[in-house]
């Protein structure tokens, strides 16, 4: 009897029974966030519950759904409109890319990895090439490094503009969708001019980049940099200050820094909680220690913070791109090591050696010394890593890509717990998952 304790609330003092009087199921409903039930059991539970007056019910959201950002299926345990526990079910886009990677040589490898995170393809190519080059122990010329950095930061801008577009539309600001695509198209047109493709470029290759930047590229980039700031101000006005937007995003899907680190979340999800962890600043790669930029950090770990971080990261990326335009060094765009880089096509007519190298590189591929390595870059979604095991042959023995969205998805049940289904749309959108790298 004396186990009860009194809580002072705004409606007067309330007496609470001791916690051990709650059944295990009630405790789970109150505190549990992750639903761990196999799909077969869940299907049975859904079928049995139909027509009964159960307190909670299971609902499938997806895999075909306008707001689940690709083929993501969420099994939600709902009590009314409140989400209790969630199970994200993935694998609908699994195409065995890691197995395919074991069958392609290192020159073909980027064509495979680039399609994993298809919204930021340069990063996938970059991480694979950095891993291969680290095992090869070749030094990349400075111009190639700066070109890679330029393309990656432009890609970050394009990916975050895609986020702004889809996030806006998911939360009701439908015109944001078109504005985001319009800006993203400027960047994609520049990519087409340089690499020949708007997406999935296979531009970053082991040894450097495929071709040099075309003449007049500075003007094209500066055109983008001049057009964007004003448009970003417009989006700030359209969304950030708007009361409906704030109501739908502030305080929704909050996560603490300890939870984020424990759940291996990286990128804007981790930075929204207040931890200023950005691989470009903390463990720099390429030439990020030679450019000035700020790391954008949130405070509350909610949807609004993640939106604001990505909006401001576009501005920071513009700063980096401007510095790339100013500081681009002259020189080679790929390493001159004949065993790694194919010779220029014109040389094949003149030199036997060039012909043989060309033949060997494009049929067998170049061999990479035996070893294993893990390399990571900061993609728009978080830490994108590549664990590469080589057996001395021309094809990777094992290629594993650590896709940041795969890990960020683990925080999703914890963000959704206790919210409404409508908040689920906001939360999924704020994590910005790309199912290609979740499923590979």
């Amino acid at each position: 009897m004396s186990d009860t304790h009194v809580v002072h609330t705004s409606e007067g003092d309330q007496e609470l029974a001791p916690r051990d009087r709650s059944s295990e199921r009630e405790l789970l409903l109150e505190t549990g966030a992750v639903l761990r039930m196999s799909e077969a059991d869940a299907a049975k539970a859904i079928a049995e519950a139909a027509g009964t007056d159960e307190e909670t019910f299971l609902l499938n959201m997806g895999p075909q759904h306008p707001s689940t950002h690709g083929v993501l299926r969420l099994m939600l345990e709902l009590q009314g409109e409140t989400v209790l526990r969630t199970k994200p079910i993935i694998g609908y886009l699994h195409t065995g890319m890691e197995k395919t990677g074991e069958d392609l040589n290192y020159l073909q490898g980027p064509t495979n990895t680039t399609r994993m995170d298809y919204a930021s393809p340069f990063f996938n190519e970059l991480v694979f090439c950095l891993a291969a080059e680290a095992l090869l122990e070749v030094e990349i010329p400075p111009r190639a490094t700066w070109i890679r950095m330029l393309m990656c930061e432009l890609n970050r801008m394009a990916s975050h503009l895609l986020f702004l577009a889809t996030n806006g539309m998911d939360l009701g600001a439908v015109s944001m969708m078109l504005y985001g695509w319009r800006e993203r198209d400027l960047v994609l047109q520049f990519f087409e001019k340089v690499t020949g493709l708007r997406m999935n470029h296979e531009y970053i290759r082991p040894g450097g980049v495929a071709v040099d930047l075309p003449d007049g590229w500075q003007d094209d980039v500066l055109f983008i940099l001049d057009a964007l700031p004003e448009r970003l101000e417009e989006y700030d006005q359209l969304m950030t200050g708007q009361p409906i937007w704030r109501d739908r995003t502030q305080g929704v899907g909050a996560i603490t820094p300890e939870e984020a680190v424990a759940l291996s979340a990286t990128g804007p999800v981790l930075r929204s909680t207040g931890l200023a962890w950005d691989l470009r600043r903390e463990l720099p790669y390429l030439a990020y220690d030679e450019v000035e930029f700020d790391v954008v950090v949130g405070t509350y770990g909610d949807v609004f913070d993640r939106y604001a971080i990505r909006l401001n990261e576009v501005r920071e990326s513009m700063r980096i791109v401007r510095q790339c335009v100013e500081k681009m060094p002259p020189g080679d765009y790929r390493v001159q090591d004949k065993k790694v880089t194919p010779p220029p096509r014109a040389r094949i007519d003149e030199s036997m050696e060039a012909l043989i190298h060309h033949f060997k590189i494009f049929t067998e591929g170049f061999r990479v010394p035996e070893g294993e390595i893990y390399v990571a870059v900061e993609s728009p979604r978080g830490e994108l890593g590549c664990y590469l095991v080589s057996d001395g042959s021309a094809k990777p023995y094992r290629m594993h890509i650590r896709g940041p969205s795969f890990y960020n998805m683990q925080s999703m049940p914890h963000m959704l717990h206790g919210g409404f289904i409508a908040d689920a749309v906001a939360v999924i959108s704020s994590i910005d998952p790309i199912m290609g790298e979740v499923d590979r």
Partner: protein
Amino acid sequence: MADTETDEVVEEEPVAPAERHGVPVAASRGVAVLFPPIEDYLRVVEALRDEGFAMCVDVTAVDYLTHPGRSLPEGVPAERYEVVVNLLSLEGRERVRVRVQVPEADPTVPSLFALHPGTETPEREVFDMFGIVFDGHPDLTRILMPEDWEGHPLRKDFAIGRIPVQFKATGGTGK
């Protein structure tokens, strides 16, 4: 002991392999790699977490069935599978790797879920792709493949799969 007449290599005392937290450690391109046996796996990861490696960045596995020969430090017996864990220290800005040898006969490894809840989905992926069982995992079911799939795709003896193609000139199926 040193041979000063010629340039031959000096015969040194045998050097014990380096150790960290009681298990062999090697350096792989600037990153320390620890090789605990399965019995010491949890203890080593916990010791690393206490040292500051708070985030488990990646859990994956490799099937060394058709590998010609990998370099392992002395005293580490080579098994068919290896579970590879990459850890990150945010304050120390440092990475460390843990590689556990997993025998083919009994591919069971303790789960890291209690130490790092963020290993829930990657361990499911390793189970799905390689068939390595994680003791203590709360929900060890397939994640990428359908739940009723048989076989473990990333094993080296699981064929990559081809669609048979009929070529007009030759007739019959392609490779």
